[in-house]
Every structure is written in C-alpha cells, then in structure tokens.
C-alpha cells in the first residue's frame, strides 16, 4: 500500500508486500551469509523468520557479520541474529524465533515444516546434503548459498521431488564421499572436526549472495501465487556461480539425478500428521498414544533418519581397549571415544586398540523393546524436539505414518506460536500415559 513503510519496494511492478508479510523463512546458519540473509529478510518485511546455528561468536566473525559487535563475542549467534532482527524489522508484529542446535542432529523436521522456504547458509557439505533431503521430504523450496573468497554460489530448488536438489549437482560418488566421512565416525568430536574449517570468506561475497537469496525468496513467494509472471521466475534448478575475477555469473541448469535418493516426500505417504506429542514424551508414552489413535500394530522407527547420517541408537558395544562388552545406550551421533571404553580402561587412561563398534537399534515397539529404553524419552534416543517421527506397521501392506511432535512448538517457536491465532486454540500438552 502506498504510504506505508515499505512503500518504495511496493512500487516495483507486480510486487505484493502481503506475500512477504505473511511469509515465513527458516535461515539455517548464522554466520556471514546468514547475517546478511536475516538482515534482508527483516528489512523487506518477511513476517516469520527463524535462525539456527550451533556456534558462538568469535572475534574472527566480526568483520563479516552485520548483526554482531565486539560485545557479543562468546554469545549465541542465533540468539544475536534474533535480537538484531527484532530491532530492525519493518513489520508490525514479526515472529522471530531462534535455537542453538546442530542442524543435522538436533533440528526437528517438524519445525522446518512450519516455514515456507528454507535458506541454507551453512559451511559444510554434509549439512547441505541433509537439508536437500529434508526439503524434498517436506516439499519446501530450498535456497542453498555458498561463498569462497570473492566468489559466491546459489542454487534454488523447488520442493517438487521431480526436480533437482542440491545432491543432484554432485555425482553419486562425490555425495557418498562427503557423507561417509561423518557416517562412519562413531566419534562426535571427530565428526565436528570434519565439519569445522577456516574457509576464505569476506563480507562482500556474503552480502551479494545474501541479497540474492532474499531476491530468490521473494520470487518464489510471488511465483507460487502467479506462476506466469516472468519477472518473478524463481529459476529453480539453476546453480549460479559468480566469479569476481571476470565479474561473471555462470548458470548451470540441473535435472534430477536418476541415482539421487532424496526424491521422496511425506506427501507420497499421506502427509505429516500434527500431534500433541513431544520429544519429552517417553518411547512408551508415544507408542501408547499411537496405539490409542491407530491400533496396536505399529512401532517407532529411526530408519528414515539413518538414510544419510548416523542416527541409530547404540545399545551395547565392545570396549575399544580390552574388548569387554559395555553398555552404551546413547544415540550414535552423541557417542564419543570415552563412551566406548569400559570403566576400568577409562579410569586407567588406556588407549583404544580396536576400531569402534556397537549394536545399532532402529526399531522400538511396546512388546519387543526392553523397559530401560521404553522409559527413555524420544530425545534420549536421539529424536530432536519438534521432529517428524516415523511409525511403521508390522502389517507390511500399510504405509508408514509420519507424526509431527507439534507439542514442542510452544517451546521452540514461541513467537510464531503466539502469532498463530488458529494454533492457540489447540492445547499442546504433554501426553501422559
């Protein structure tokens, strides 16, 4: 509307501010590019913004991050992004939420399910590949960004499983090589080291690709409403690489790779069912709720989450020093080297002699799972808050069910939850036995 605070951008032909006011974007990563994307989202008036990162600010972040200052060193990046956005957002009642989390293991798919577009500003291949898979499962467009010195890359994929994802831009061998380094490591410290690099980056490339990411997001929002508007073509399936040396943007148009295993959607199985369940519920409470709702021939499965990353539950293992059987009872991605030593070898400070190994558990049922595990919460067995869990039937003719742990929404997305008047009518209380 003319005369509003966003008057100037509303003068762009075809531009509809309402589409931005009502849109929600999830910004994955709060580094250089994440800062720029978040700033542009707030200044264009995108109504719902979510920020996630697992890191805290260090002084080397400061030259590239518009939302951080010297006083913020040591503080949570995602929290600071949210604080900065609340100050600068041009909208009247934006929903700005954040969490500190490892995106691959601690960010629930159900959370992303409440956003329209995923914008990927991470710094490693494993997380990009993980998000490529999740975006197809959820049917959400994903804008992937990357920087390298003065150059930048952007790849926009639609949520359509018939079209390319980020993994389709790689060969099968390249994808497997990128994932196997973390998949085969039973040591969380090693996995984190694999993902931590000191890349060459500068604010100028982050600014450029951060601007383009919101440009693409705006195009996606308009394209959804009016697919025939050429000016708002999101250019899905195009990777664009800017090379500063010759000031050129080169486009690479991808088709779905026939060997890519990411092209499955929850919609193929009847969609996601919102539930009052939470990751704070025990395995037993969850299975009993499922039994009441759907009958008694279902079990909880971690298999879909293990497709690319180590999400299994480890029950027992052999001490990597003396070979003695030991209890582990932890999610695979949390296991550290010390967890694979028996008490005596750990106290003696003994070194590992054998490769790490463990009994991996994927399925949990009321009849077939021991009480110790049934009494653990979903979070204890590695399921993140606000995740989408898979419930499979012992009757193989039945499709699996995908249940969203919507009971976690008030805790993780308090502002979005508060602003959604429809959601406020539903009571998401912890399910008790």
């Amino acid at each position, binding site marked *: 509307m003319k005369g509003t605070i966003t008057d100037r951008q509303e003068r762009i032909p075809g531009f509809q501010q309402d589409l931005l006011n009502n849109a929600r974007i999830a910004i994955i990563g709060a580094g250089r590019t994440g800062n720029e994307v978040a700033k542009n989202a707030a200044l264009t008036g995108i109504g719902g913004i979510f920020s996630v990162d697992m890191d805290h600010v260090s002084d080397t972040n400061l030259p590239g991050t518009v939302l951080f200052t010297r006083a913020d060193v040591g503080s949570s990046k995602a929290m600071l992004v949210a604080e900065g956005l609340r100050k600068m957002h041009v909208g009247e009642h934006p929903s700005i939420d954040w969490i500190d989390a490892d995106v691959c293991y601690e960010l629930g798919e159900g959370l992303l399910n409440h956003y329209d577009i995923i914008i990927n500003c991470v710094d490693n291949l494993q997380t990009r590949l993980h998000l490529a898979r999740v975006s197809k499962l959820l049917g959400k467009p994903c804008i992937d960004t990357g920087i390298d010195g003065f150059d930048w890359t952007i790849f926009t994929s639609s949520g359509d499983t018939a079209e390319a994802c980020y993994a389709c831009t790689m060969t099968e061998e390249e994808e497997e090589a990128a994932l196997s380094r973390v998949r085969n490591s039973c040591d969380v410290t090693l996995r984190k080291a694999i993902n931590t690099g000191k890349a060459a980056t500068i604010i100028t490339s982050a600014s450029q690709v951060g601007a383009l990411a919101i440009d693409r997001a705006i195009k996606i929002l308009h394209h959804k409403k009016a697919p025939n508007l050429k000016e708002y073509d999101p250019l899905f399936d195009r990777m664009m690489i800017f090379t500063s040396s010759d000031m050129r943007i080169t486009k690479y148009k991808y088709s779905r*790779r026939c060997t890519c295993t990411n092209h499955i959607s929850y919609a193929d199985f009847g969609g996601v069912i919102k539930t009052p369940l939470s990751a704070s519920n025990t395995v037993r409470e969850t299975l009993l709720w499922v039994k009441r709702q759907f009958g008694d021939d279902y079990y909880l499965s971690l298999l879909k989450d293990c497709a690319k990353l180590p999400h299994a539950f480890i029950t027992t293992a052999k001490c990597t020093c003396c070979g003695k059987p030991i209890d582990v009872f932890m999610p695979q991605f949390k296991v550290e080297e010390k967890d694979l030593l028996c008490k005596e070898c750990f106290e003696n400070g003994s070194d590992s002699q054998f490769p790490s190994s463990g009994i991996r558990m994927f399925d949990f049922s009321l009849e077939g799972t021991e009480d110790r595990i049934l009494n653990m919460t979903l979070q204890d067995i590695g399921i993140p808050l606000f995740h989408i869990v898979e419930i499979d039937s012992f009757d193989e003719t039945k499709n699996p069910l995908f249940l969203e742990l919507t009971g976690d929404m008030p805790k993780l997305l308090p502002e979005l939850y508060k602003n959604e008047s429809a959601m406020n009518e539903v009571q998401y209380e912890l399910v008790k036995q």
Partner: protein
Amino acid sequence: MEEITITLSYGGNEQEYICPKNWTVARVLSESAAQGFLPSATNYVVAKEKTEEALINSRTLEENGVQDGEVLNVGIPGKAG
C-alpha cells in the same frame, strides 16, 4: 575413437582441448587440472555455455551430448557460509 575439440572456460580464461568423445567429463577436468588450467578440486560443475545445461561428470562427452566446438563453463561451488 572420434575426437572432438572443446573449450573449457573458467574464471575468465579459456583453454581448448582435443579429446576422444568417450572420455568422461571427469577425465577431461582431471587432465585440465593436471595441466594447471583448472585449480585442483573435487566438485567441479560443468555446463554447456549455449544451453546452460549441466553435464553429468561421470558420463562421457558423447553421452552428455557435447558437440565438436562446444564451449563448456566450469565452476567450483563455494561451500563456506
């Protein structure tokens, strides 16, 4: 085996190559890196300049429909954030 002439374009520079049609794209890139034209990398992306169609690196030039005289743009996607 029939050979074709292709031009690799990277970072504002171009280099012409004569190579067999049954060479994979990956092999062409590897040879180019060995000769010092391309930087060493594990994740090149390649597209036909005319159509912007991305090539499948594990397939041959012929399988990718690369014609004699074609210019191929080569890029290395940035990964930092």
